[in-house]
Each structure stands twice: as C-alpha cells, then as structure tokens.
C-alpha cells in the first residue's frame, strides 16, 4: 500500500502481507489455511469466524457458498475482497493479493445489503463507481446505458437511491458490480428480499455471465436457486468448510435411477412397466411410480409471465 502524498516520507510501502508479485496460478480465487479471529474483549473470548479454509475456484465456474448465518461465508468474501486482513493463512485473487489494486480491478462486488449512497440517483451512482474503477468519458456513458438496460432500471435512474425498493437496489448493485467489466464477481445474497420474478432474472443474468466466461462466487440461503446455477458449492458451518464439490457428485442419489415419461400412466400400464423392469433383476417392491411436481417457483413464474403476455397483447383489458 502506498500513499500518494507525503512530504517527509515520499513513497513508503506501508503494508505487504506476503509478496505482492503475481503468482502464476490456474485459479481465479484460492485460499490456503485462511483464518480469521476476532477478539471479544468483553466476553474474554476469541471468535474464530473462519478456521483454516482451503478453497480453489477455477475461472469460469459458478461457485456457491452455503451455510447458516455466522458460518463464515461473508467473512470469506470479505477476505477475498481484501476488506479485512486474515489472522493466518493466505488468499489470492488471480494470483494477486486481494487488497492490491490490480486484483480489485478484475473483481466486482454486490453487497448483501444496499451499501450505497441514498442521496445519489441511479445514474450518479453508476457514474461515481465507474470513475472509481477508472472508467471515464464516453466509455462510461456507454457502459451506464448498457447496464441500465441489462438490469432493467430505466424507470428509476433519475430517482435517488433512498426511494428505491429492495429489488431495485439489488439491480443497481449488480450494475455497479459490473460497471468495469470484471472477470470475477462476488455476490453476497444476490436474491435476498427480491420477488420471484426479479430473482429469476438475476439467476438468468448469472447464467449469462457464466456463458461470457466470468467467474461468479455467490452466497445464498435459497438452496433451490443455488442448485439451478452453481457448478460447485461449499457448505460452511461454525467457521469451517464442511463439504465441497460439484452439485452433480454431491446431490446424485446413488443406488437409484429416474425415468421421465411424458404421459400419465394408468394403473394397468404401471403394472406392466413394473413387471418389465423387474425382469432386469430389480426387486419390484422397491420400484416407485410418482407424478413429478412443478416447483412453486415454476408455477408462479409460469402464471405471472402468462398474465404479462396477455396484458401486452390486449392493453385495453378486453
């Protein structure tokens, strides 16, 4: 860390955690033995928020951080962003220390709650954060237009952020995280408090970002959503990483196979199918026939979208 003005001490390297030279690495983000402890002086105890975390996230993957509140997800994000300093261990983003400017130029962050200035409107907010990222002039203007379009904030861009709804704040949050076209995105509870339609839009956006080759690390409590977008997940509990792996390998129930038939079978048809399968050596008592269910989210989306399509075709309401 340097400070740009200094009469007596012209340029002093204040802080070097470890070497600040980039290390060649195949990972977008990695941690080795990353630990964070907080002193609780009034309780005469020490809180271990994160305990020796080893994590590797490859470029282009969507990684989900899961766990109950206080399990260390946010702490991990903050350490990877360089906002806090580890008590032990190391974190690297694209081979660089997280608090270096080069690392942060390639990183975008959507905070859990709207940590933005309420007195600025949408345009001013994006302009402010854009300038801080070194995006200026006509390029910044273009970028703001693109992002407003992308997140669907045309109506609210002139209004101050303090008048925004939670959904709008998440959208502006996403926009500012993307303003400088980062390679790695940290999303802390991106769909918290957002209605299912907006939530679905954010999910689609994450999929689009993945197609663009961006790496996304996000934490969420909405397990079904994580299931839909993440490639790999890690589950945290009490500051420790308990489980990690691809969804495919973690969720697949071994010892069973699912067949989807696009028709409702009568009892007789079910009996005939059961007999056919049991001839392959499988105990027919263990074969179950169930009707697949839509998720409530799918039903909701389908209904709301249909209504929206209907309204756009018949604006007079007839």
């Amino acid at each position, binding site marked *: 860390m340097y400070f740009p003005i200094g009469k007596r001490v012209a340029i002093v390297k204040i802080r070097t955690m470890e070497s600040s030279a980039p290390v060649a690495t195949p990972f977008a983000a990695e941690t080795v033995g990353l630990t964070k402890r907080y002193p609780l002086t009034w309780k005469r105890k020490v809180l271990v928020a994160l305990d020796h975390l080893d994590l590797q996230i490859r470029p282009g993957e969507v990684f989900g951080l899961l766990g109950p509140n206080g399990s260390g997800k946010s702490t991990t994000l903050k350490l990877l*962003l360089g906002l806090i300093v580890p008590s032990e261990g190391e974190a690297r983003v694209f081979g660089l220390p997280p608090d270096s400017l080069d690392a942060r130029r390639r990183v975008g962050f959507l905070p859990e709650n709207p*940590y933005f200035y309420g007195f*600025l409107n949408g345009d001013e907010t994006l302009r*402010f954060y854009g300038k801080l990222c070194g995006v200026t002039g006509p390029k910044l203007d273009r970028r703001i237009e693109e992002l407003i379009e992308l997140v669907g904030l045309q109506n609210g861009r002139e209004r101050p952020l303090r008048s925004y709804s939670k959904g709008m704040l998440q959208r502006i949050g996403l926009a500012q995280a993307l303003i400088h076209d980062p390679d790695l995105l940290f999303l802390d509870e991106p769909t918290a408090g957002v209605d299912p339609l907006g939530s679905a839009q954010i999910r689609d956006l994450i999929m689009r970002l993945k197609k663009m080759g961006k790496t996304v690390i996000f934490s969420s409590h909405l397990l079904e959503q994580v299931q839909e977008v993440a490639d790999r997940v890690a589950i945290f509990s009490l500051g420790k990483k308990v489980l990690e792996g691809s969804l495919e390998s973690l969720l697949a129930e071994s010892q069973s196979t699912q067949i989807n038939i696009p028709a409702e079978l009568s009892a007789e048809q079910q009996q005939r199918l059961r007999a056919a399968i049991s001839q392959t050596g499988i105990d027919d008592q263990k074969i179950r026939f169930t009707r697949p269910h839509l998720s409530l989210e799918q039903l909701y989306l389908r209904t709301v979208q249909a209504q929206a399509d209907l309204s756009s075709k018949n604006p007079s309401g007839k």
Partner: protein
Amino acid sequence: MISSLHRIITIARNTLTESVRKKVLNVLLIFALVLVGSSVGFSQLATPGLDSSGLFDAQIKFVKDFGCGAIGLFGFFIALLSTAELIPQELHNRTIYTILAKPVRRSEFLLGKFLGVVLLLALCVALMSLAFAATLYWQELQGLKTTDAAYAQSSNWQANSVLVSAYNHDVQQIVQQVRDPQLIEAIILIFAKLVMTIGIALLISTFATSSIFTIVTTFMIYLIGHMESTAREFWLASGANSSIWQSSLVGFISLLIPDMNSFTIVDEILAGNKVPWSHALNLIGYADVYLIVLLAVSVVIFDYREI
C-alpha cells in the same frame, strides 16, 4: 499518480455533494449569515450616543470582530461536525465496503473525504465572507452618512478649507478601516486554523468508535491548543525543577498539540494593526506542514483499521 488524484477528486466531489444536499448544513449556514449581519446591531449597541473622535473606529472594530468571530465560530462547528461524521457514517452504513471493493486505496478514500470537507468549508467561509463584506460596506455607508450630517450642521462648510480637510480626513479614516486589504489575510488565517481543526478531527475519527468521542476530543484539543504556547514556554524553561508527571504532561502538550494561540494575531489585524504577509505565510506554512503530518498519521492508522 493521475489516476490516484482522479479517484481522490471523485470521492471529494461525492462528499461535497452529500454535505450540500443535507439540510442541517443549510440551517447552520443561514444562522451564520444572520449572525454576521447582526454584528452591525451590536456595534450600535456598544456605542450609544457616542461623540468621541474614535466613534467610527470603535464601531468598525466591533463589526470586524463579530463578523470574523462568527466566521471562525461557525466555520469551527461546520468543520467539526462534518468531519466527525465522515468515517463513522461510512462504517455504519457500510458504504465503505462497496468503495473499498473497487480499486481504491484506503489512503485515497481518506484523502478524498478530507478534501471534500475542506471544499465544503471553503464554500461556507466564502459565503460568510461575502456577508461580512456586505456588513462592513453597510457600516461604511452609515459612517459616511453620519459624518455628512455632522458637517452639514455648519452652514457653507465647504468654503472653509480647514473643515474640508478635516472632512476628507474623517472620510478617509472610515474608508481605510473598512476596505482594509489585511482582512483577506485575516480570513485566510482563520481558514488555515479551521483546516487544521479538520485534520485533527479526521485523525481522531480514524480510530474513534463514535462521532461524539471525536467531537469532544477535538474540541478539547482545540481549547488546550490555545494554552500550548504557555505549556511550551514552561516546559522549555522548567528543566529539572518540575516533577516527572508535570514535565511529562506539559511535554506531551508541547510536542503533540498544535499552537492554536498563534492564530489569534487575527485579533491584531482586526484592531487595525499591521501584520506583514511574511508572518502570515509563516503561520500558514506551519499549519500546512502540521496538516500533512496529521494526514500521514491518519492514513497509517486507517490503513490498519479493521472495518
């Protein structure tokens, strides 16, 4: 370097915008302008029915004292309250997380915030100075009106060369005192003192946990700073005569607390005495270097602060 400066200025402009859009500051400013204007009323109050030759000298002195006193006092409140809120607000609202997640150094953030408050103060001082100038001008007009009336009591006084000479002299005295270019020097010195106060408040806020603590501590340092010269003289002269505790306390004050009392030469300017620009520049230089040290220490402390 340029991009660093660019980021600092972006944060400064944002800070200024935030302060300007806040209603509280507007109220404070209006209050200040009213006080500056009412200094005229006070000067009339202090010199009722006065017939001495020093009448206008006294009235103009009171207007100057009160006008600059109001600028100093309100400037102090604006500086202190704005600075004390800077860091705690960012931490409380967590807006600092979003900013520091961007490629912005903590030092740039701090310096940008500081610059924003300094710009705000400069704006307020400029507005109050305009009000002050208007008040002084009104006082000049009053003085000239009273002089005209006094001389008009002698019929055909314009024919008397002695009376004409006396009239011209009286008018010249009033105008000279009102349009004293040294007043600009005085306001610049007041501003320099206030910017130093901002630096102190910023330093305290980098490690303080509440803005109340910052306000109280900065105010105490401000007061002790006016006694620092006495402490320094005592410490340098006392040698082995005082106890270790006395010596330590006085030494601590002398070594670390700024000498605020040296800025009271503004009183001399307001009383009409000559203060050369070389001395004013010496004081301003001292304030600037002190400020750089304060900012450097603030940057170090803030760099290492857990947020």
